């Protein structure tokens, strides 16, 4: 949070503004929602085919037909960027949802069952976390072959231990609270307590963890696709677009500047959103 001294220096209008919207979370959530909306509706509104080549119109500048110009094959950059946004965000969402589910299952099972199973699970998770995640992901891709499915699988397989560790300690801390004892006292079963009582109470922290990982996941997906270890070339993907533009970028830098900017801006928005979300979830944390 902004300290008192800095807050006092703000102009009156801004201060009023701050009071009406008490938290920057709303701003970043709104901007992130715009990005998501662009990814969801963009390809429907801008219907130019992202894969239609036109070798007579390579590296064209901005025009009505191609607002952001064209790439080295004469393909429309705007259409490719919008398609790429959808692919990047959907892939990142799949990786994060799968990691969250896996982490939740392993983490909460370990916490609830306890005993030797818990010790083994905790050791395994700690061991996996001591490995270089991206290198292991590269290893998985190298062994199972390149492609979108392997990439998503590799990032999930290396990503879940982090979630499992956090959720395990979260569930251990939460199940000692009075409301769980109370629920048990009125005769609720383990499953009911987990779904109806624990679930809603850990939903906030779960969302924070997932949001914190979103930026890194988008960057990881883009990096592997850039290396040619992700989606195959004609598919519009931001990292792959940068790789394709590499041959000509000394004469036409825009073809790599545009997708790179798209990644950077998206990740900045996502990171600011997740920072704000974390602060909202834990207002007493020092910044």
């Amino acid at each position, binding site marked *: 949070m902004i300290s008192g001294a*800095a807050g006092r220096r703000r102009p009156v209008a801004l201060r009023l503004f701050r009071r009406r919207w008490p938290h920057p979370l709303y701003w970043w959530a709104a901007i992130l929602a715009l990005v998501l909306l662009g990814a969801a509706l963009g390809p429907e509104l801008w219907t130019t085919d992202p894969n239609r080549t036109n070798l007579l119109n390579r590296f064209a500048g901005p025009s009505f037909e191609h607002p952001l110009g064209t790439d080295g094959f004469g393909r429309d950059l705007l259409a490719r960027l919008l398609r790429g946004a959808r692919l990047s965000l959907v892939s990142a969402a799949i990786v994060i949802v799968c990691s969250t589910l896996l982490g939740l299952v392993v983490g909460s099972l370990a916490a609830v069952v306890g005993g030797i199973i818990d010790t083994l699970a905790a050791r*395994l998770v700690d*061991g996996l976390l001591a490995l*270089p995640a991206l290198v292991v992901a590269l290893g998985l891709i190298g*062994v199972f072959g390149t492609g979108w499915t392997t990439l998503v699988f590799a990032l999930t397989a290396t990503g879940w231990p982090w979630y499992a560790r956090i959720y395990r300690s979260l569930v251990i801390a939460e199940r000692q609270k009075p409301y769980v004892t109370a629920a048990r006292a009125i005769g609720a079963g383990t499953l009911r307590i987990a779904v109806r009582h624990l679930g809603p109470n850990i939903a906030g922290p779960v969302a924070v963890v997932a949001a914190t990982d979103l930026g890194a996941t988008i960057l990881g997906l883009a*990096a592997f696709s850039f290396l040619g270890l992700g989606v195959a070339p004609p598919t519009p993907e931001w990292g792959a677009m940068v790789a394709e533009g590499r041959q000509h970028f000394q004469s036409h830098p825009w073809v*790599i*500047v545009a997708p790179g900017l798209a990644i950077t801006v998206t990740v900045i928005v996502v990171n600011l959103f997740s920072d704000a979300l974390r602060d909202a979830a834990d207002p007493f944390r020092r910044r």
Partner: protein
Amino acid sequence: MVRFVGSRVLQAAGVLVLVSLIAFSLLKVAPGDPAQRIAAERGGEIVSSREVEAVRGELGLDRPIWEQYAAWLSDTLRLNLGTSYVSREPVAKLIRERFPASFALAAATVAISTALGVPLGVLAAARRGPLDTAVRTLSLILASMPSFWLSLLAIWLFAAELRWLPAIADFSPRGLILPVAVLALRTMALLIRVTRATVIETLAMPHVMVARGRGLPERLVVVRHAVRNALVPVITVIGLDFATLLAGAAVVEWVFAYPGVGRLGVQAALNGDVPVVLGFVLLASVALVVVNTVVDILCGLLDPTIRPARTVTA
């Protein structure tokens, strides 16, 4: 202290066993039959199933899985990592040839980012205000940029436009400048964040209040009392960065065609060259585990309070 070091070494050994199990199972589940491949290499296009079976017996692939694992482990411990499918050279040799280049890249990156990142983080924490905002914004932007893109922008500006430095980085002081700069910017961004956060935390501790109460000038309070106490997390991050960069600089090495281990790993992954990929994974994992253990022990020496706590929280 002996107990602390012993428990850390034991933990590291446990992780290394896990690494070996992962690498071995990846080798086993890798598509393609190694016996078939080797038989085909020897006997040309058409291979009878008897020939394949002969090779299988020779390689020990018909023995129980745990015997195969033991054989593989003893080979691996003697650095016999197999031969590349593509270049036919021993994997250990390929890695050994490229390791010095990666080591130099990681060492230079860590040295530069520490020299810049730690003071900037301390300054940002001590002054707050506009400098803090600037440093935080910079580190946010740097941490949000894909490193391959930053590398390409650097090549475009310094190699293509200004023609100051080569676009292809060889293992030489001149070649190292651009990749080190790109990697150091990212590493620095992370280091600034960690340093800033821990210094702010220690500045709120009672002993700092006492130092201020005694009338020490703020500069001395920060340098003597806050920074010293913030050292442990900062050293941990530096160690982690170094170990990660040894192999994790793969993307930047790839863009600059730098002759390091990372580029070898990416090329192997693209070719489906399983022995080289696994050698790369093994190297990166062992490096990370060893460096982490050494750093943990160092931190234990620096800060006695974390010694007993380690065994409980780790």
